[in-house]
């Protein structure tokens, strides 16, 4: 037995538990209080306003736009990244000549800082001087308004995220693929199952927990999208790339509207919990 008594176990765990509780519970309780208050941060005043902050947010076209953008971005970017990650993982699960050299190249974007990624892509997206439009023009095509066409800007930001974070899904799924027992694959081969049927009915169900895990992790991360938007578009043009995190940051740290920021954060937490619950439920189901 590792611990001599229950008391010893509790006394060892208590300091860390208390510290964690204070560091977690205090901010959460402040957010809860602030969400239902008008807070004058500079004047150190707080006044209970009931649901006014929530009503103001729901009435705010920019907030609703930010919620929509965040959901679209989170769902689409996560599925694209996991889809591409799966394709790459299937490819890298086989042997091919330059595999040793290709693997580091594929995971390289994930190692870059997001601000560096954003700076690179902002230069590539430049309408007049950017690499992408130069390539399109040299092929005889028209240049594209990557970052300033409101209907395209969110997808341009998404492309950067896909470029940077697909490797993460790829690595998670590859780990799953490599843990599939070879005898199951061999048995299917012996039974004469084609490549597609082996993948569809044997490999895919066996790596489903890893796929769902990758989806869950990417959804959580993409739902918090802030830095790429901040560096690439600042939330524009118009409101087309504004996200919940950016909206809350502006309210909280630029304007010190702590009431509105807290109400926004609470709503964001609620949506994130709902999304995570769906994935977690599917994940547990897939595992069992």
């Amino acid at each position: 037995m590792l611990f001599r008594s229950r008391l010893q176990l509790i006394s060892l765990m208590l300091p860390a538990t208390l510290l964690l509780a204070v560091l977690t519970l205090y901010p959460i309780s402040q957010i809860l209080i602030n969400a239902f208050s008008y807070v004058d941060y500079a004047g150190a005043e707080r006044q209970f306003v009931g649901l006014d902050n929530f009503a103001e947010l729901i009435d705010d076209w920019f907030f609703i736009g930010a919620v929509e953008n965040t959901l679209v971005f989170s769902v689409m970017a996560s599925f694209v990244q996991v889809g591409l990650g799966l394709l790459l993982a299937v490819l890298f699960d086989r042997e091919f000549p330059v595999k040793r050299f290709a693997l580091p190249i594929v995971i390289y974007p994930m190692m870059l800082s997001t601000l560096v990624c954003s700076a690179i892509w902002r230069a590539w997206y430049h309408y007049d001087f950017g690499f992408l439009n130069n390539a399109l023009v040299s092929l005889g095509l028209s240049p594209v308004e990557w970052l300033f066409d409101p209907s395209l800007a969110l997808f341009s930001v998404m492309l950067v995220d896909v470029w940077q974070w697909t490797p993460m899904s790829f690595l998670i799924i590859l780990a799953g693929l490599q843990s599939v027992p070879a005898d199951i694959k061999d048995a299917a081969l012996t039974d004469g199952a084609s490549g597609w049927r082996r993948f569809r009915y044997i490999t895919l169900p066996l790596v489903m927990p890893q796929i769902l895990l990758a989806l869950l992790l990417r959804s959580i991360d993409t739902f918090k999208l802030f830095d790429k938007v901040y560096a690439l578009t600042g939330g524009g043009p118009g409101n087309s790339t504004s996200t919940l995190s950016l909206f809350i940051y502006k309210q909280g740290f630029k304007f010190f509207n702590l009431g509105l920021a807290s109400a926004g954060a609470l709503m964001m937490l609620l949506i994130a919990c709902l999304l995570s619950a769906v994935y977690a439920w599917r994940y547990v189901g897939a595992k069992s």
Partner: protein
Amino acid sequence: MLKHSSLTLALTASMALGAAAVQAADLVIAGRDGIYGKALEESVARYQAAHPDMDIELLKLPYGSLYEKLVISMRENAGAYDLVMIDDTWATEFMSNGWLANLEEQSGITGDFITAALDISRYPVGQGPAYSLPVVGNVAMFTYNKSLFKEFGLTRPDNWEAVKTAAKTISAKNNGTTGVVFRGQKGNPIVTGFLPLFWAHGGVIVDDGGKAHVNSDQGVQALESFLELKQYAPRGVEVYNSTEVRDAIQQRKAAMAIEVWPSWVPSMDDPDQSKVVREMEVIAAPGQVKGSSPMLGIWQMGVATDAKHDKAAREFLEFLTSAENQKQLAIDLGLPPTRRSVYTDADVVAKYRWYPNQLDALEHGKPRPRIERWNEVESILGDYLQLAMIGELDARTALDQANRKIDRALKR
């Protein structure tokens, strides 16, 4: 076990010593990064040469981070900083909350500070005592390519109608140069680009009664002119920030820029970076129904009310804003001075040909509204200006909606 305890003790001791070192500084300065940080660093080095025993802690922070840290420190009365650098738009909030010390309590302000720049260091503005001193004489200037203007038979644009005509003429030639460029990114950039037009047309953001007034007929006319200029700007101007504006001018992709800041100008004359060396004329922004209204972007420094080294902070501030130090900073780094005598100094003018025009712009400069919630008001206006810019709203609707939202923010 002993080894672990020693390691823990050593770590704790080093952290405590580190904290003590921060506490032990004779003066703690919170300033900006970039050129402003370099200027502070250079000034600190010069000051320390004369005061070798003095330990000065200089923090160089990005714009947003500086604001957050200052507000939190001063609101919590933490006394973390002695001397603080602030954007002039933060001044009302800092001064009205009593976060900055009165600099005229002990003696008056001496020297030849440019009046418009010193006025916004006072609270109430222009009348009360000074709570800060202007340290960077930033003012939004207008620039046009005089070679191109000559080629097209155009004269110096004195009003915004002339700017539109020139932009149209140059763009019509379709030779790879657009008529005009500005910062169109939402938030501070687009508002900064728009304000010289808005003011020149007679627009007012907040009236004397403290109510939002951006949707006046003058405001709408100004926005319509701004939107008209977009036709003659490079594609993608909606997301242009300072880098793109500079590139467009320096690569001759645009003949005029609504807004250039003093620190951008030297690179226009640098043959390694620019195709328009000595071609750009830098002048005060054109007028319209009102005279020229260049926007002031003064950086100020003040002594924190909760400063632990008040005397040292005041003495360093006096040195920092002295004519000798400003001249040196202008020559070494191109930092725009705030004293008249430096702008007329022969050595300085020999290096920066546009300084007489810059002084003129500063003298006629207009500060952004002196309201506590300017950050939020600017952001709201910037959001709606951009919606108009990308065609989602017309000028009148954009300004009506902005006005409603600004009013709500001002009432909070």
